[in-house]
């Protein structure tokens, strides 16, 4: 019972925080809400028996990636006028159409998951099992992920370096 309650609380927090994050004018505020949302999702992971994923969610997602965002936002030094402009853009005339589309998509997703039955297993999948699978049948995926990260590394270095050079 506790898990279920916790789940609904976490889900509510995640959804609310996300909505708030999407609608903030100030980037830093939005980012904070997003971190909250990610943490809530981490709780859900924990609750459904994926402690390893929950840890990664906190460490990498909420930690590393979001910090990256923070750095960049600080580097850009966005001021008050930026916020005002963002606020001005959040008019119903702008979001009404996309909202309708999003709702339609959501409705379809709902229709699709409506057939799904049954609970999630309470048996936690341990980090060991994940590790075994990762370096067993999924080793190729690891390689691909590493290539991807390398590419990301090189790409961001290239873009960032030019930014810094020009600034000098």
């Amino acid at each position, binding site marked *: 019972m506790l898990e279920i309650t916790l789940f609904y609380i976490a889900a509510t927090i995640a959804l609310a925080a996300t909505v708030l994050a999407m609608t903030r004018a100030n980037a830093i505020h939005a980012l904070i809400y997003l971190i909250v949302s990610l943490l809530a999702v981490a709780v859900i992971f924990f609750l459904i028996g*994926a402690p390893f994923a929950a840890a990664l969610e906190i460490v990498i997602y909420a930690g590393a990636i979001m910090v990256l965002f923070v750095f960049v936002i600080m580097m850009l030094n966005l001021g008050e006028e930026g916020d005002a402009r963002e606020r001005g853009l959040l008019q119903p005339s702008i979001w009404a159409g996309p909202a309708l589309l999003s709702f339609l998509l959501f409705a379809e997703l709902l229709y699709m998951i409506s057939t799904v039955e049954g609970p999630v297993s309470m048996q936690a999948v341990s980090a060991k099992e994940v590790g075994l699978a990762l370096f067993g049948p999924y080793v190729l995926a690891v390689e691909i992920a590493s290539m991807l990260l390398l590419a990301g590394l090189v790409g961001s270095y290239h873009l960032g370096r030019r930014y810094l050079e020009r600034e000098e």
Partner: protein
Amino acid sequence: MEGLNIPLNHILLVSSLLFSIGMLGLMIRRNIIFILMSLEVMLNAAALAFVAAGAHWGQPDGQIIFMLILSIAAAEVAVGLGLVLQVQRRFKTLDMDSANRMRG
């Protein structure tokens, strides 16, 4: 504990809601930072669905895909933020629509 487990479709419901919100954000925001955030939300929503499905079957595969998504998100954010810097430098704004030179 039997019978009290969290129903899978509730988790998927959360996941789809998150996805839809992320998509909405993607569509209505013009600031690149927010666009990237929206993407993160969407990726995260997908990851949630994977993990939930993995948990449903008691298999590690869902978490593995989650990790792959994680690395995609990391790479994407790294490159994306690099682009943000470039856009800011070139156009002195983060408004995506100002960078529409590729117009066909």
